[in-house]
């Protein structure tokens, strides 16, 4: 930086401009980690399969990290999204567990819309429609849960860390209670249109599958939805009035208020959006695994938060990077998978992620507040 001040040559200018390209520095970190893993665990990281499995297995977390970026940029936190994942997973899965087919079949038969037979194809047809209701209900339950968090934070004034911590007990407890503590499979989901739309694989021709296991190798459609959400949230945060409100609120809520920003309303909308995204993540997780378990989503809390901060969203609020969070989550995912592939345990992965986390936060802080260099004794007085 001091170099640039002394001689503002075009080359230095280009370098510092590249540093400010959103997500580029953290992308380079991802590349370095990948190259290291290719050396340590070539079997896993030189073929495409590991990458495809990372993309599909971490898609719900990616969606949550994208949403959490807005929450943290607004100076808040949400700890309840893993519990919302569990709850929305249950709500979606419930449409396959309970005897809705029977209930729906009766009136439809009575109205003469379908025949009397309870033949498998009739049941499948009904189930094919019911699961759409499940999709909407899953996202809706997430949005409702987020809205309640928003009310507690914005209207009642409970700090978000406390409100969402308390709510995560409620949502997880509610999900486990309603599920009677049991896990269950989504019978009849496989083969429906929604199944195709949420778990399909595209561009399968690009991959030399050899043996087709459960699904052919291909780009999971969920990745495309995740990218779509990333683009949408990027535009909301960086180009939309709502995103600007969030940035000012995160910067200084008092300033935001006197500038005429609807601080409370924006926070309620923010938590509702986060809840809806967690709800969608829950549905995606359940459709992919075709299974509901009461621990669904629980492991995502720490890695999603870590990903957002590794990506460069400000720990002080007022600035956030969607691209950084996306890449941050890929870094965490690659480290988790990589340590296992290198025959090291998950415990080692945790330690490495923690160190990457701290290093990243320190570096981002130094970029944001260069005067802290002095505190470290690195800068000149």
């Amino acid at each position: 930086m001091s170099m640039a001040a002394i001689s503002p040559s075009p080359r230095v200018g280009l370098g510092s401009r590249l540093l400010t390209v959103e997500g580029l520095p953290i992308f380079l970190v991802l590349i370095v980690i990948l190259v290291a893993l290719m050396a340590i665990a070539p079997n896993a990281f030189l073929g495409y399969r590991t990458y495809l499995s990372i993309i599909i297995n971490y898609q719900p977390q990616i969606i949550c990290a994208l949403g959490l970026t807005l929450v943290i940029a607004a100076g808040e936190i949400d700890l309840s999204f893993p519990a919302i994942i569990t709850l929305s997973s249950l709500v979606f899965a419930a449409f396959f567990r309970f005897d809705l087919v029977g209930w729906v079949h009766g009136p439809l038969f009575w109205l003469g819309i379908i025949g009397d037979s309870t033949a498998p194809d009739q049941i499948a047809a009904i189930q094919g429609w019911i699961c759409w209701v499940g999709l909407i209900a899953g996202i809706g339950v997430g949005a409702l849960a987020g809205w309640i968090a928003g009310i507690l934070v914005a209207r009642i004034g409970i700090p978000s860390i406390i409100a969402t911590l308390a709510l995560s007990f409620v949502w997880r407890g509610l999900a486990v209670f309603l599920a009677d503590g049991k896990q269950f499979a989504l019978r009849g989901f496989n083969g429906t249109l929604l199944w195709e739309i949420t778990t399909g694989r595209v561009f399968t021709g690009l991959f030399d599958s050899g043996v087709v296991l459960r699904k052919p190798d291909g780009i999971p459609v969920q990745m495309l939805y995740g990218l779509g959400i990333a683009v949408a949230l990027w535009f909301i945060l960086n180009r939309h009035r709502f995103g600007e409100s969030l940035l000012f609120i995160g910067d200084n809520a008092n300033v935001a208020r006197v500038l005429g920003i609807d601080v409370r309303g924006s926070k309620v909308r923010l938590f509702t959006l986060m809840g809806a995204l967690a709800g969608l993540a829950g549905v995606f997780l359940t459709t992919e695994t075709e299974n509901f378990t009461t621990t669904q989503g629980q492991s995502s809390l720490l890695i999603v938060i870590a990903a957002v901060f590794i990506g460069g969203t400000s720990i002080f609020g007022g600035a956030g990077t969607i691209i950084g969070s996306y890449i941050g989550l890929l870094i965490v995912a690659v480290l988790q998978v990589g340590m296992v592939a290198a025959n090291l345990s998950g415990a080692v992965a945790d330690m490495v992620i923690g160190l990457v986390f701290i290093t990243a936060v320190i570096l981002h802080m130094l970029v944001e507040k260069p005067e802290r260099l002095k505190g470290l004794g690195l800068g000149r007085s």
Partner: protein
Amino acid sequence: MNEKTFQHVVRMDRIRMAYGKVTALRDVSLQIGRNEIVGLIGDNGAGKSTLIKIMTGVQKPSSGDLYLRDNKIDFSSYSVREAHRWRIETVYQEKSLGEKQPLWRNFFVGRQITNRWGFIDIKKQKEIVNDVLLRQIGFRGVGINADSPVSKLSGGERQGVAIGRAMYFDADLIVLDEPTVALAIKEVHKVLDFIRGIKDSGRACLYIEHNLAHVHELADRLIVLDRGQVVSDIPKGEMSLVELQNHLLDLQRQKEAAA
């Protein structure tokens, strides 16, 4: 609305503000003319902040009436946005700008140039901000442009941006809350020049200030607030700076005698 046919940009009539048992304002009545710089002085806790918060839509009073451009205001629907619509702008000390946000955001926040979906026309906002910075505020050759974050600006420059923003949005009244506090002398002079600019452009200004010398020099009229009441209303030229200081000391003594 375009022709300035009104008499007072703001008139407050028996405004009262109570927080539980504490009364911050007791029947405050005052008015500000169209092109008047009114200095508001008073001790800490005299009620100055409460007064401007009510005037600018941040708080609602317990009772009393507010008239903007001679129109009575309905407090149930009065807000900061509504005050903006009445062309009343406030420059709060340290509280008018988002520190980390670039100037193009700070300038237009709350009043962005957007398309119908609410997406901001960044290019246009930057053009306007760069133009205002150069022409109106006079930031020439100081390396500040629309992309600079507020954190890079000096205290005086920040006040300049906030005042320039108010003028750009064609405010009739600009409320300044201690704009020179914690500024170096050179920066103070910049801010005082900005305030003269407000007067020259035909606007009114309510100027809250601790430093009597500054406010005495600039204001057309001084209003002294003490324990929630207006105790003096002094037109320019009626008192010299020394007389003003003595007057305030007298008030202080009376207060102590009463206590």
